[in-house]
């Protein structure tokens, strides 16, 4: 993966606070470029990364983590007959990265059909990095048995179907929005999970940076294709008091970004196959792209956090350029 200080694609630096910056970020919604922003005690500042001395300053509490998504092991159709090899390539990118990430998050659709051998293949490849991996399920992982085969494998017995953990002052929350889906509806969190979330956030100060990850977007990306979560507004309301909230999702197999108040949303690439941009095809199924284009549309994401004059950088790296 590229070194963040040198290779991150950064927009023109803006020197004014507030509206201008937000407008710029909102306009970038479909830019697909790596994007950075600053955090000062959890409150977003005005500087984007610019290769300055500040940017080069290394804080010993800084860390990065990696997001991979939608590996769909078991899929074997146009445009990717072998998602195992593209997942392996994605993992190789993580392994050969100059900066060792603290952990990996996988935002779901690990398997294509919830089959034990598909889970086995995926976890063997991903865990070859030797890094901790935090999984949340996609709908393809909970196709049978109310998802119990997934949870038995990926959840710790002591934690329910959603969880949180802390890393160097950042609070991470893994949510499940692919269970108990309602006819005519979208992704779904449910009362029990929302009550847990309220409790979990209650104990945090508003200056704590929050990173939330789930499979289906927690924003209305394209409800006509099911790309949203019915009760996500209730979750986001609970996060409004926080100065910095980053929401990472999979499901849509493409980079998409949105800023809403202090909450920034990022959809990730798949490691298996791309899906069309909203409304550009008859449906949201796999895009049948030529073999020489496939790896340009798959990738992994690195997220870096630096406390203090911090930069939380989101950089998407494609399997080939």
């Amino acid at each position, binding site marked *: 993966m590229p070194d963040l200080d040198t290779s991150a694609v950064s927009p023109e630096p803006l020197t004014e606070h507030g509206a201008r910056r937000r407008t710029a970020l909102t306009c970038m919604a479909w830019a697909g470029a790596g994007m950075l922003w600053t955090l000062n005690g959890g409150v977003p500042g005005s500087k984007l990364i610019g290769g300055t001395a500040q940017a080069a300053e290394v804080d010993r509490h800084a860390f990065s983590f990696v997001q991979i998504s939608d590996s769909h092991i078991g899929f074997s159709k146009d445009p990717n007959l072998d998602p195992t090899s593209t997942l392996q390539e994605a993992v190789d990118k993580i392994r050969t990265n100059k900066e060792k990430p603290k952990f990996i998050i996988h935002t779901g659709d690990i398997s294509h059909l919830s089959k034990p051998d598909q889970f086995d293949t995926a976890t063997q490849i991903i865990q070859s990095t030797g890094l901790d991996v935090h999984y949340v399920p996609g709908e393809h992982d909970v196709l049978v048995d109310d998802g119990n085969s997934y949870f038995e494998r990926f959840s710790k017995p002591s934690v329910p179907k959603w969880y949180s953990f802390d890393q160097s002052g950042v609070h991470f929350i893994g949510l499940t929005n692919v269970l108990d889906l309602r006819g005519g509806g979208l992704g779904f969190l449910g009362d029990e999970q929302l009550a847990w979330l309220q409790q979990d956030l209650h104990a945090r100060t508003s200056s704590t940076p929050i990173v939330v990850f789930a499979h289906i977007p927690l924003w209305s990306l394209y409800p006509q294709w099911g790309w949203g979560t019915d009760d996500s507004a209730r979750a986001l309301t609970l996060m409004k008091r926080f100065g910095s909230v980053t929401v990472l999702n999979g499901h849509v197999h493409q980079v998409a970004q949105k800023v809403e108040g202090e909450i920034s949303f990022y959809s990730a690439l798949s490691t298996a196959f791309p899906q069309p941009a909203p409304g550009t095809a*008859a449906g949201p199924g796999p895009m049948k792209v030529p073999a020489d284009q496939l790896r340009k549309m798959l990738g992994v994401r690195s997220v870096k956090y630096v406390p203090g004059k911090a930069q939380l950088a989101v950089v998407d790296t494609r399997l080939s350029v």
Partner: protein
Amino acid sequence: MTMPDLGRALVARTMAAMCFAMALAAAPAFAADTKPATTIVIDNFSFSPAQLSVAAGSTVTWENHDDMPHTIVNDATPREFKSAPLDSGEHFSQTFSKPGTYKYFCSIHPHMTGTIVVK
């Protein structure tokens, strides 16, 4: 009548005829004494036809033509029917013996919905 007027009248008459023909074509699906179409195709994340009327005792078959798995789940409590995940090319059949309106959806992609009316 000028030429454009004549043209317009022709178009109008043709369209009226087409509408009539379509109405005729659609009619058998709602007539109890005619054997209705009983196959529903899943394509591009939608059920086609999304609304289907059948006579009591009919068997309806769903065929998945998508590259992604789908399910057919009755949207009712208790559920009258629920399929296993259908991968590409797989199908699921359900026989409807009791008249009624049966809403269903794909539990993987719940924005996909359909209705079977059994007469």
